[in-house]
């Protein structure tokens, strides 16, 4: 039964009746359990209980549960949540809590199997201080969400674009398999000859090969298993692009709906492997200020998307696309990167001299790793948004607004100093990691630091 009433212009919702049902069920089970063991101990026998005794235990459990139900209903202090103009007011007995709408990062609905049976819904409210959940009757949920103020709510539904990943999302399995196989093939090619030379016997060194293959097998199973889990968890996945948020729905048994507000998105990272590039697919990760329980930044958009879908997501939040060509400095970057691998090169040469010349094969690794990094490197500094392209195995594109950048770190080794470039690390928020976006020219680094000097008038 719905128990929502109007009170002084605000809408009050009574937090759900589910608690008494769950507690009563718990009392019933506990009573039956205790009665069962008490009966066995009194009667002095185990597992030879008669039907009469079982009926007596069940009657006792039912009786206790009914008494508990009525006592609980009489004594229960019904918690309420009132939706006012400025926020939510939670009341339980003498305890009152206030949450401003400005502090709410996301509100999402979760309807589990038990919730569907008891006709209740779990609403998770995430704020800057943490996340808490309330339970509302299913009939009150839409009224509750309508009371959460959003601009342009009336036209929201008409403008919404829905993105539904289709079969392209399964390319991730192939992509991971190819990447892992190439990595392991490289590892075996550079290390196996040295191991064989050190051990002096091929029959001994084949155990090293078996060990590597075992690691490969485990990594493959783990990786593909993870993608299987994602595919199962995010069944019936869809993204609706509203005027001010993404509404992300997924789940077959437990239907979940997340609201990812545009305001909380600090940066986008669009990445793809060479196999993804072959099929014209992208993966989008949003770095957000909200840390939702049960879903991480990488899983707001967990599947591979076609180019137009990825663009729709990114440009819904950051419509100001930085114009121009990528600024690149491949030769300078290659030299600076090779200097950073100097310690590895020296170690390989020392081991090649003292242990076996086959160790010199390790010198292939710095060369093989530097080339794709230089190929992927580049950046564009727009009016309000910076775009960085970087990565070795994957091509990553980071889009970030200057006002969301919290810190920059520029590092110069000897070669970088000589060529006037700096390795740049960017941080966008408290809970996000830093991004190593590659090398930028010193003049552009100075330009970025000047942009950080602009005061940001924003509630944090």
């Amino acid at each position, binding site marked *: 039964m719905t128990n929502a009433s109007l009170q002084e212009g605000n809408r009050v919702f009574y937090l759900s009746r589910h608690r008494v049902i769950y507690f009563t069920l718990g009392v019933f089970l506990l009573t039956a359990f205790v009665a069962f063991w008490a009966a066995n101990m009194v009667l002095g026998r185990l597992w030879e209980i008669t039907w009469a005794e079982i009926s007596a235990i069940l009657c006792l459990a039912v009786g206790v549960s009914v008494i508990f139900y009525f006592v609980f209903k009489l004594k229960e202090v019904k918690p309420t949540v009132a939706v006012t103009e400025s926020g939510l007011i939670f009341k339980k007995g003498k305890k009152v809590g206030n949450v401003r709408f400005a502090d709410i990062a996301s509100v999402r609905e979760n309807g589990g199997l038990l919730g569907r049976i008891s006709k209740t819904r779990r609403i998770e409210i995430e704020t800057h201080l943490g996340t808490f959940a309330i339970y509302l009757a299913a009939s009150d949920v839409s009224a509750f969400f309508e009371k959460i103020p959003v601009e342009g709510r009336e036209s929201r539904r008409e403008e919404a674009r829905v993105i539904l990943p289709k079969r392209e999302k399964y390319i991730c399995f192939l992509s991971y398999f190819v990447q892992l196989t190439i990595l392991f093939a490289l590892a075996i090619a550079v290390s196996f000859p040295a191991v064989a030379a050190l051990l002096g016997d091929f029959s001994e060194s084949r155990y090293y090969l078996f060990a590597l293959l075992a690691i490969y097998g485990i990594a493959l199973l783990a990786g593909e298993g993870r993608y299987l889990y994602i595919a199962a968890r995010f069944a019936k996945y869809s993204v609706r692009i509203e005027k001010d948020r993404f509404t992300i729905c997924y789940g077959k048994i437990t239907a979940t709906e997340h609201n990812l507000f545009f305001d909380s998105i600090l940066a986008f990272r669009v990445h793809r492997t060479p196999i993804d590039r072959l099929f014209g697919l992208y993966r989008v990760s949003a770095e957000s200020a909200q840390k939702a329980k049960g879903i991480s930044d990488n899983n707001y958009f967990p599947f591979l998307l076609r180019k137009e879908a990825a663009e729709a997501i990114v440009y819904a939040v950051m419509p100001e696309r930085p114009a121009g060509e990528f600024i690149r400095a491949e030769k300078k970057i290659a030299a600076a990167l090779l200097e950073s691998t100097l310690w590895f090169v020296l170690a390989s040469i020392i081991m090649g001299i003292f242990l076996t010349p086959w160790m010199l094969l390790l010198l292939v690794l710095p060369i093989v790793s530097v080339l794709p990094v230089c190929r992927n490197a580049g950046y564009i500094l727009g009016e309000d948004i910076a775009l960085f392209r970087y990565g070795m195995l994957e091509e990553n594109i980071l889009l970030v607004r200057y006002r969301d950048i919290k*810190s*920059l770190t520029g590092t110069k*080794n*000897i070669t*970088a100093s000589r060529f006037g470039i700096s390795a740049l690390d960017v941080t966008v*928020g408290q*809970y996000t990691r830093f991004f190593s976006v590659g090398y930028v020219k010193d003049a552009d680094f100075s330009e970025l630091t000047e942009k950080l*000097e602009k005061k*940001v008038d924003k509630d944090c």
Partner: protein
Amino acid sequence: MIMKRQEGYVYLGKEFAGRVKKRAAVLFACLLVVPAVLVVLMFIAPGFWEVFLILALAAIAADGIFVLAHGLRYASRFCFAVMPATLRIRRGLCCRKLCIVRYADVNRVRVKRYFRKKNVDSGVQEYSGAGKSALRFLSESDAVYDVRLYCGSGKYDLKYLSQASAAAVLSYFEDGNDERIFARGE
């Protein structure tokens, strides 16, 4: 080679730079025990002398780079500047690193104060927060501050700040600047 000092940046005071260098040298000498043990093992187990030699060389290199060189470089290179919206910190061992941190990125600030106080009855000089030998050059009216900034991008330590420098840094943090930290102790 004398390193060129950056304009507008605050460096470590001369006495504190000397203290950092001395500590680095002492720690480096102590850690030479590790390669010494490895050299001894070279003679005890001559069958693996190459392995012990490589490890000893690696230990000396690591000790020299991460302890001695780091301490010496830190003393002469570490500096910071307080800008209107950001804090700029220069540091680095084998490379030069410039960190630009927005004040909004600072989640927490920890301030430690070291000062000298005189026990009136016994006339004994005491130093609060540090060993006696460390800050003996402080006068009775001096205090030094260590400010640690906990940011989303990591921790930043600003050490051995004078009261004026510490006040300049802390003034940019709303509600975090408690003037009592600058009051003299009991």
